[in-house]
Protein backbone atom coordinates (compact mmCIF):
# COMPACT_ATOMS: atom_id res chain seq x y z
CA UNK A 1 0.00 0.00 0.00
CA UNK A 2 1.42 3.36 -1.03
CA UNK A 3 0.28 6.48 0.80
CA UNK A 4 0.94 9.37 -1.55
CA UNK A 5 0.03 12.93 -2.48
CA UNK A 6 -0.96 13.87 -6.03
CA UNK A 7 1.42 16.87 -5.99
CA UNK A 8 4.44 15.15 -4.40
CA UNK A 9 7.31 14.37 -6.74
CA UNK A 10 8.89 11.83 -4.36
CA UNK A 11 5.55 10.00 -4.24
CA UNK A 12 5.52 10.06 -8.03
CA UNK A 13 9.03 8.60 -8.22
CA UNK A 14 8.05 5.88 -5.76
CA UNK A 15 4.97 4.95 -7.80
CA UNK A 16 7.01 4.85 -11.01
CA UNK A 17 9.57 2.59 -9.31
CA UNK A 18 6.88 0.19 -8.10
CA UNK A 19 5.44 0.05 -11.62
CA UNK A 20 8.90 -0.61 -13.02
CA UNK A 21 9.44 -3.42 -10.51
CA UNK A 22 6.13 -4.90 -11.63
CA UNK A 23 4.80 -5.42 -8.11
CA UNK A 24 1.12 -5.33 -7.31
CA UNK A 25 0.16 -2.39 -5.16
CA UNK A 26 -2.71 -0.16 -4.10
CA UNK A 27 -2.23 3.52 -3.60
CA UNK A 28 -4.12 6.48 -2.19
CA UNK A 29 -3.62 10.10 -3.09
CA UNK A 30 -4.54 11.27 0.38
CA UNK A 31 -4.87 14.92 -0.68
CA UNK A 32 -7.66 13.92 -3.08
CA UNK A 33 -9.67 12.24 -0.32
CA UNK A 34 -12.07 14.38 1.65
CA UNK A 35 -13.37 14.58 5.21
CA UNK A 36 -13.69 11.25 6.98
CA UNK A 37 -12.00 9.31 4.18
CA UNK A 38 -8.93 11.49 4.50
CA UNK A 39 -8.94 11.21 8.31
CA UNK A 40 -9.22 7.42 8.06
CA UNK A 41 -6.31 7.27 5.59
CA UNK A 42 -4.19 9.45 7.89
CA UNK A 43 -5.06 7.31 10.92
CA UNK A 44 -3.98 4.17 9.13
CA UNK A 45 -0.85 5.85 7.73
CA UNK A 46 0.18 7.07 11.19
CA UNK A 47 0.04 3.53 12.54
CA UNK A 48 2.97 2.77 10.23
CA UNK A 49 4.62 6.15 10.23
CA UNK A 50 3.80 8.34 13.24
CA UNK A 51 5.11 11.39 11.37
CA UNK A 52 2.31 10.95 8.84
CA UNK A 53 4.61 11.92 5.98
CA UNK A 54 4.60 11.00 2.30
CA UNK A 55 5.40 8.81 0.51
CA UNK A 56 4.97 5.90 2.92
CA UNK A 57 5.07 2.45 1.43
CA UNK A 58 3.64 -0.39 3.52
CA UNK A 59 4.80 -3.77 2.30
CA UNK A 60 2.60 -6.83 2.95
CA UNK A 61 1.30 -5.27 6.16
CA UNK A 62 4.69 -6.05 7.66
CA UNK A 63 7.00 -3.09 7.26
CA UNK A 64 6.99 0.49 6.11
CA UNK A 65 9.50 2.45 4.05
CA UNK A 66 9.19 6.19 4.52
CA UNK A 67 10.37 8.45 1.72
CA UNK A 68 11.70 7.58 -1.73
CA UNK A 69 14.45 5.22 -0.61
CA UNK A 70 15.09 3.61 -3.95
CA UNK A 71 17.82 1.24 -2.84
CA UNK A 72 15.85 -0.02 0.13
CA UNK A 73 12.66 -0.46 -1.89
CA UNK A 74 14.57 -2.39 -4.57
CA UNK A 75 16.26 -4.61 -1.99
CA UNK A 76 12.99 -5.52 -0.33
CA UNK A 77 10.98 -6.02 -3.50
CA UNK A 78 13.50 -7.43 -5.97
CA UNK A 79 13.54 -11.03 -4.85
Amino acid at each position, binding site marked *: MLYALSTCQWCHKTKVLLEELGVEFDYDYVDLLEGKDQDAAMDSL*ERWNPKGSFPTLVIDNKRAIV*GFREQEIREVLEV
Partner: protein
Amino acid sequence: MNVPEITERSVEVTYVTLKSDAEKNGYRLNLDVDFTKNLVRGLLKNEGRYGYRACPCRLASGKKDEDLDIVCPCDYRDADIDEYGACYCALYVNEAIASGKQKVAPVPERRPPRSERGKHVVRTVFNADLPVLPLPVWRCKVCGYLCAREQPPEVCPICKAAKERFERFI
Protein backbone atom coordinates in the same frame (compact mmCIF):
# COMPACT_ATOMS: atom_id res chain seq x y z
CA MET B 1 -14.25 22.51 -6.38
CA ASN B 2 -13.55 25.07 -9.07
CA VAL B 3 -9.81 25.16 -9.46
CA PRO B 4 -8.20 27.41 -12.06
CA GLU B 5 -6.34 25.57 -14.79
CA ILE B 6 -2.56 25.46 -14.52
CA THR B 7 -1.07 26.42 -17.85
CA GLU B 8 2.45 25.68 -19.04
CA ARG B 9 2.93 29.42 -19.19
CA SER B 10 1.99 29.94 -15.53
CA VAL B 11 4.38 27.12 -14.54
CA GLU B 12 7.18 28.73 -16.57
CA VAL B 13 6.53 32.23 -15.20
CA THR B 14 6.40 30.97 -11.59
CA TYR B 15 9.53 28.87 -12.08
CA VAL B 16 11.50 31.81 -13.47
CA THR B 17 10.30 34.11 -10.65
CA LEU B 18 11.14 31.59 -7.92
CA LYS B 19 14.56 30.92 -9.44
CA SER B 20 15.43 34.58 -9.72
CA ASP B 21 14.15 35.39 -6.18
CA ALA B 22 16.08 32.41 -4.79
CA GLU B 23 19.33 33.41 -6.43
CA LYS B 24 18.96 37.04 -5.36
CA ASN B 25 18.71 35.88 -1.75
CA GLY B 26 21.50 33.31 -1.73
CA TYR B 27 19.36 30.21 -2.33
CA ARG B 28 19.46 27.72 -5.20
CA LEU B 29 16.67 25.84 -6.92
CA ASN B 30 17.02 22.16 -7.77
CA LEU B 31 18.80 21.92 -11.11
CA ASP B 32 16.58 19.07 -12.34
CA VAL B 33 14.29 21.38 -14.31
CA ASP B 34 11.54 18.83 -15.04
CA PHE B 35 11.38 17.74 -11.41
CA THR B 36 11.40 21.35 -10.23
CA LYS B 37 8.68 22.40 -12.65
CA ASN B 38 6.53 19.55 -11.37
CA LEU B 39 7.01 20.91 -7.85
CA VAL B 40 5.99 24.34 -9.16
CA ARG B 41 2.91 22.71 -10.72
CA GLY B 42 2.13 21.26 -7.27
CA LEU B 43 2.54 24.67 -5.63
CA LEU B 44 0.16 26.22 -8.17
CA LYS B 45 -2.33 23.38 -7.70
CA ASN B 46 -2.26 23.98 -3.95
CA GLU B 47 -2.63 27.72 -4.45
CA GLY B 48 -5.69 27.01 -6.60
CA ARG B 49 -7.37 24.56 -4.23
CA TYR B 50 -6.32 25.94 -0.83
CA GLY B 51 -5.58 29.60 -1.56
CA TYR B 52 -1.94 29.37 -0.54
CA ARG B 53 1.20 27.68 -1.82
CA ALA B 54 1.43 24.79 0.60
CA CYS B 55 4.40 22.43 0.22
CA PRO B 56 3.55 19.93 -2.55
CA CYS B 57 5.04 17.07 -0.50
CA ARG B 58 2.93 17.65 2.61
CA LEU B 59 -0.77 17.27 3.29
CA ALA B 60 -2.33 20.71 3.74
CA SER B 61 -5.42 21.13 5.92
CA GLY B 62 -6.98 23.85 3.80
CA LYS B 63 -6.85 26.18 6.82
CA LYS B 64 -4.11 28.70 6.24
CA ASP B 65 -3.46 29.55 9.88
CA GLU B 66 -2.79 25.86 10.60
CA ASP B 67 -0.48 25.55 7.60
CA LEU B 68 1.59 28.74 7.78
CA ASP B 69 4.66 26.67 8.62
CA ILE B 70 4.40 24.74 5.34
CA VAL B 71 3.66 27.67 3.04
CA CYS B 72 6.57 27.64 0.60
CA PRO B 73 9.29 28.56 1.47
CA CYS B 74 8.46 26.62 4.63
CA ASP B 75 9.74 27.26 8.15
CA TYR B 76 11.90 24.13 7.89
CA ARG B 77 13.74 24.96 4.67
CA ASP B 78 16.90 26.49 6.10
CA ALA B 79 17.43 23.82 8.75
CA ASP B 80 16.90 21.06 6.18
CA ILE B 81 19.27 22.65 3.67
CA ASP B 82 21.87 22.96 6.45
CA GLU B 83 21.49 19.36 7.56
CA TYR B 84 20.54 17.48 4.37
CA GLY B 85 21.48 19.81 1.54
CA ALA B 86 17.89 20.22 0.39
CA CYS B 87 14.51 21.28 1.71
CA TYR B 88 11.86 18.61 2.30
CA CYS B 89 10.47 18.57 -1.25
CA ALA B 90 13.92 19.42 -2.73
CA LEU B 91 12.80 22.60 -4.48
CA TYR B 92 15.62 24.44 -2.71
CA VAL B 93 19.08 22.88 -2.49
CA ASN B 94 22.55 23.80 -1.32
CA GLU B 95 25.42 24.79 -3.58
CA ALA B 96 26.92 21.26 -3.69
CA ILE B 97 23.66 19.80 -5.02
CA ALA B 98 22.93 22.75 -7.30
CA SER B 99 26.33 22.31 -8.93
CA GLY B 100 25.86 18.56 -9.32
CA LYS B 101 28.59 17.55 -6.84
CA GLN B 102 26.16 15.93 -4.43
CA LYS B 103 22.90 14.04 -4.96
CA VAL B 104 19.59 14.76 -3.28
CA ALA B 105 18.76 12.19 -0.60
CA PRO B 106 15.41 11.77 1.20
CA VAL B 107 14.90 14.41 3.88
CA PRO B 108 13.14 13.19 7.05
CA GLU B 109 10.03 15.15 8.01
CA ARG B 110 10.86 17.90 10.49
CA ARG B 111 7.29 19.18 10.84
CA PRO B 112 5.62 17.93 14.03
CA PRO B 113 3.00 15.19 13.48
CA ARG B 114 -0.74 16.08 13.46
CA SER B 115 -1.17 15.30 17.16
CA GLU B 116 1.55 17.76 18.19
CA ARG B 117 0.69 20.69 15.97
CA GLY B 118 -0.79 23.89 17.26
CA LYS B 119 1.23 23.61 20.46
CA HIS B 120 3.13 26.60 19.29
CA VAL B 121 6.34 27.06 21.14
CA VAL B 122 7.14 30.73 21.47
CA ARG B 123 10.88 30.91 21.26
CA THR B 124 11.08 34.27 22.91
CA VAL B 125 14.41 34.65 24.61
CA PHE B 126 13.87 35.87 28.13
CA ASN B 127 17.21 36.19 29.72
CA ALA B 128 17.64 38.02 32.98
CA ASP B 129 21.04 39.21 31.80
CA LEU B 130 19.59 40.98 28.79
CA PRO B 131 19.08 44.69 29.16
CA VAL B 132 15.50 45.91 28.86
CA LEU B 133 15.13 46.69 25.18
CA PRO B 134 13.30 49.76 24.02
CA LEU B 135 11.59 47.73 21.27
CA PRO B 136 10.62 44.10 20.75
CA VAL B 137 12.69 42.05 18.32
CA TRP B 138 10.86 40.12 15.59
CA ARG B 139 12.23 37.16 13.67
CA CYS B 140 11.22 36.03 10.19
CA LYS B 141 10.64 32.28 10.53
CA VAL B 142 11.44 31.78 6.85
CA CYS B 143 14.87 33.42 6.57
CA GLY B 144 15.86 34.44 10.10
CA TYR B 145 15.83 38.19 9.48
CA LEU B 146 15.62 40.14 12.75
CA CYS B 147 14.29 43.64 13.30
CA ALA B 148 13.53 45.79 16.32
CA ARG B 149 10.23 47.66 15.95
CA GLU B 150 6.77 47.82 17.50
CA GLN B 151 5.30 45.38 14.96
CA PRO B 152 6.85 43.11 12.35
CA PRO B 153 7.01 44.57 8.83
CA GLU B 154 4.16 43.84 6.38
CA VAL B 155 6.65 41.96 4.20
CA CYS B 156 10.09 40.62 5.11
CA PRO B 157 12.56 42.93 3.34
CA ILE B 158 14.93 39.99 2.79
CA CYS B 159 12.81 37.06 1.67
CA LYS B 160 9.41 38.72 1.05
CA ALA B 161 7.58 36.44 3.49
CA ALA B 162 4.34 37.97 4.79
CA LYS B 163 3.96 39.58 8.24
CA GLU B 164 2.20 36.48 9.60
CA ARG B 165 5.45 34.49 9.23
CA PHE B 166 7.19 36.58 11.94
CA GLU B 167 7.56 35.56 15.58
CA ARG B 168 8.43 37.61 18.63
CA PHE B 169 12.07 36.76 19.30
CA ILE B 170 13.11 39.03 22.18
